[in-house]
């Protein structure tokens, strides 16, 4: 075990995987000498050199497209998109090429690559450094989507993603990069499966479901509820495609009240999918409507960086609504 922040864990996991498997390479803007603008690839350049840690030109299409070609030719690229907001110039490569290659080739070719990207707001970045675009990926058949919230989960899921033969969009909650330090298992084989939600708090009165950057706020709400004598069952989804429908439906069936938290814009966000699934699969177990607490349907603002986020207060209001329903 080593005590690490999330961003340190990423660099360490990449190091471990690159040491283990020569085919693993890293590419992106500033991933070389600079070690990434968040230092998520720190020191890798010194250790593995320019053939395995590739500073790319300023083009997300080049990064994602080239990563695909590398993967097809036998490497296991881990591409970094500097901010998830900047995935869009490379979006066509992701949805038209990467996501569909296995399918369109009848399984002849595969695309074992990871696209890492810091996501989420609360860093005073305005709308082009704060967005949460996971819904776009989850709606794209052929992509797996992971969005951890703790250093250990990041370690375990990044390893799984790198070893996966399918393309994985690996979203990283940037405002949690350095928020906590944690004992992270250093075993180079420590890996976590997808679609296993983590129970962050056991409870019986209301289910709170979230993932990624919004977990911190959700946990704060859970703490506040505990102080008020309300016991929240808090689930951290950790992966969104596939996601843990079983844990969600079981918790909802048992408790009957559920609040879904995500900072992505409300309309068409991933939690709408969860709500739809709950409504379709667990209608009779519901004691109150599944309520979504989300970002607003505005571009991410700058001056209201904090107010935009679904913070503990808004979560508590929603909980009140489902408890009093």
């Amino acid at each position, binding site marked *: 075990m080593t005590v690490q922040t999330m961003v340190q864990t990423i660099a360490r996991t990449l190091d471990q995987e690159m040491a283990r498997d020569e085919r693993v390479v890293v590419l992106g803007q500033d991933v070389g000498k600079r070690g990434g603008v968040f230092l998520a690839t720190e020191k890798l350049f010194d250790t593995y050199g320019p053939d395995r840690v590739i500073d790319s030109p300023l083009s997300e*299409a080049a990064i994602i497209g080239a990563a695909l070609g590398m993967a*097809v*030719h036998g490497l296991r690229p881990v591409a970094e998109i500097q901010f998830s907001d900047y995935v869009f110039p490379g979006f066509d490569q992701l949805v038209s090429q990467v996501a569909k290659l296995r399918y369109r080739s009848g*399984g002849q070719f595969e695309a074992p690559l990871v696209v890492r990207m810091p996501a989420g707001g609360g860093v005073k970045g305005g709308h082009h450094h704060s967005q949460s675009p996971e819904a776009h990926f989850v709606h794209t058949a*052929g992509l797996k989507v992971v969005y951890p919230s703790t250093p250990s989960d990041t370690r375990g899921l990044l390893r799984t993603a790198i070893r996966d033969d399918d393309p994985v969009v690996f979203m990283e909650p940037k405002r949690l990069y350095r928020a906590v330090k944690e004992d992270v298992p250093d075993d180079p084989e420590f890996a976590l499966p997808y679609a296993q939600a983590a129970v962050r708090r056991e409870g019986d009165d209301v289910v709170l479901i979230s993932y990624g950057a919004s977990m911190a706020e959700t946990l704060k709400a859970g703490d506040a509820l505990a102080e008020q004598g309300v016991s929240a069952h808090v689930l951290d989804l950790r992966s969104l495609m596939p996601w843990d429908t079983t844990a969600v439906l079981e918790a909802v069936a048992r408790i009957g009240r559920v609040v879904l938290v995500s900072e992505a814009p409300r309309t068409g966000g991933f939690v709408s999918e969860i709500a739809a699934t709950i409504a379709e699969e667990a209608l009779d177990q519901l004691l109150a409507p599944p309520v979504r607490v989300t970002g607003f349907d505005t571009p991410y603002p700058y001056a209201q960086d904090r107010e935009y986020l679904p913070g503990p207060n808004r979560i508590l209001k929603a909980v009140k609504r489902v408890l009093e329903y």
Partner: protein
Amino acid sequence: MIRDSQLFQPFNDEPISLIGETGAWEGPFDLDLDPAALRGMYHDLVVGRLMDERLSRLQRQGKVSFVAPSAGHEGAQVGLAHALERGRDWLFPYYRDTSLLLAFGLPQVEMLAQAMATRADPNRGRQMPSHNGSKDLNIFTIASPIASHVAPAVGAAISMKVQGTGQVAVASFGEGATSEGDFHAALNFAGAQGAPVVFFCENNRYAISVDYNHQTGADSIAAKAHAYGMPGYTVDGMDVLASYYVMREVIERVRNGLGPVLVETLVYRFGPHSSADDDSRYRPREEVEAWKRRDPLLRFRRFLEKQGLWDDAAEAHLRAEVEASLQAATAEAEAAGPIPVEWMFDDVFAQRLPHLEEQRHDLLD
């Protein structure tokens, strides 16, 4: 004069041409191909042409839903195919590469099975016709979004460089493709990395109806190589030997680690953009007829005849042989039978995820 290894100069004003319209060898060096190799090229030109005609016929018969005719492009394509090392180099082709794919080794039956979406398509009927691919042959499965395959070719080439395999990747595309942002992103990355990749443009002057002057203000597609610090060549694509010799030199250069190259071949599509197009809306008939007189098959046949390697009997024999082979391949492709419905749910991921299992179950129930 013996061909030396730096014969062709980039950024040439006149397209490189080696055979005159009458079939005369006009190259500034001695031919070094034996008769079998030359006849082999002609064979591949004819196969491409006859396959093209067959696909259009099958389309009219309703057995194929769509065709992107390639007649007029054969010279450029076959020249390229013969300059590559089969089974070693990689192709990232586009939908109009019928002759290229076949000459690079794609079995006729696979092309026909893909077009008719039968079980003999190794791509399992996942895409519309003219979208082949073969892992065994290092042919990256074609995708419709124009120019989206170019960055993957660069990535593969970077992998070749990093792993020191001595392979070469080639991406082919039309001149319209050069306008896409992803084209640029790809060439620029290749240039910065010195990756072993060749960008092979089949400039037929039209992107569906949009003509060259609406496509770009550049003097030539080859001139775009300046933007990436790589050489750019313009080649007469109706001349299979010009394509072959330029590509042979270029590929050697690239294989030797001297960095990427852009090659523009000047071609013309004799037919409409696709079976869904009506090109009379935008192309004058005289223009089409003028280009048809420059047919790459005709020119090369004249050349072979002048060399004493071809005559009417050989032509008749070859055509009969190729038709028979295509006929057999068509029958084999058809006999494989239609794609089963349930294949729809495979190959989304390496393993079928639970939600897809459920959806499959729902449909098949």
